[in-house]
């Protein structure tokens, strides 16, 4: 699949945002989110995910909180109300895209 890398990356861009917003409806911290994303099939680089979380927080789609109860203090992110609305809008868009793409191949047969 290496020959299509650029195109595939282009298509995947943006899906990570949606995945983060959905996964962080229940709060999570950076490394656990990275693993969860991988488990769900969104392979993401750490160095793009961590700045992305900050950016989403700055835009108001995520809220954050330091959890200092455990031995290792971690920054927990949670999807805000705006974030949930954004996630819903993105999901709707994704569904309509899926239908649109399906209609492309249907016409061929």
């Amino acid at each position, binding site marked *: 699949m290496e020959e299509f890398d650029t195109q595939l990356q282009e298509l995947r861009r943006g899906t990570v945002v949606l995945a983060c917003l959905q996964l962080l409806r229940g709060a999570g911290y950076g*490394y*656990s989110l990275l693993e969860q994303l991988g488990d769900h099939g969104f392979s993401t680089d*750490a160095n793009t995910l*961590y*700045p992305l979380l900050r950016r989403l927080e700055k835009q108001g789609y995520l809220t954050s909180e330091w959890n200092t109860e455990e031995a*290792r203090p971690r920054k927990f992110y949670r999807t805000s109300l705006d974030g949930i609305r954004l996630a819903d809008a993105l999901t709707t868009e994704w569904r309509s895209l899926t239908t649109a793409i399906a209609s492309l191949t249907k016409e061929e047969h």
Partner: protein
Amino acid sequence: MTATLTERYISATIRSLKPELQDDVRAELEALIADAIEARTDQGEAADEAEREVLSELGDPGLLAAGYADRPLHLIGPKYYLTWWRLLKLLLWIVPVCVVGAVLLGQLLSGAEVGESLVQALAIGLQVAVHLVFWTTLVFVVLERTGADTGMKWDVDQLPEVQEDGAGRSELIASLVFLAIAAVAVVWDAVRGFFPTGGEPIAILNPGLWPWWIGALFGLMVLEAVFAFALYAQRRWTTALAALNTVLALLFAAWVLVLLLGGELVNHEFLSFIAQAGGEEFASGNADAAGNGGVFRILAVLLGFGIAIGVGWDIADGWRKAVRERRVARV
């Protein structure tokens, strides 16, 4: 105590961040890296090996910092690139050429050597070009980082006209008419004179140039006419035609400049006739300009300059059209 790799990595990352962000990012990165290392050591990997791997995966700290700070990783992005490039091209076409011309003209008028003036003018032109590129780019780099609007919007009215390449029938006729007028003027000048002298006609061109130099001039004119027909026959500029055009233009420039520099182009009788007809005012004007070699010298410099610019433009124009034709042909 030497800092660990992780400490060094985090320091390198947060160094360029805003102060209020630094502590927060440091604490977060410490946890993230520690988590990642732990995940690897749980699999049985050695601690220092795991640290290396984790940090390598995180990549260049500068890249990570740019992500945190939301900084662009390019000088000029797509939003400004075309505006920058168009402005730069426009400025580079106009400013250095004007500066080189002005400096050269000034130098020649003040009596400097031709070669020396040329070198100096080109050196200044180069400096101007470098400054132009630097400052224009700097302005756009600042714009890119402040996100200001340049106010440049494209609309269909800006579409360039489809360009004529000067290889059509009207260009052929124009060339031939111009050459005919020039040939007649040279002969008329020698036989009848252009102005009343109250006696024998006085030619403007040096009569000593007949027959060989003037013959060469007519030869060049014939070649120009042949060239105009060749261009019309081909209907477009080619590399060969552009080369031919260059040779002809250089021959013409050589013809004029050799005579002009040698003081052989213009009839001496004609010059003294003008000086007499001009009377006292001319004499005083000439005296004012004497420091620069007199009025005639200044006129000669201006004439030579004009011819050099005209010939240079003619050559460049031919190549420009030939290159464009080749590009069109390739598409």
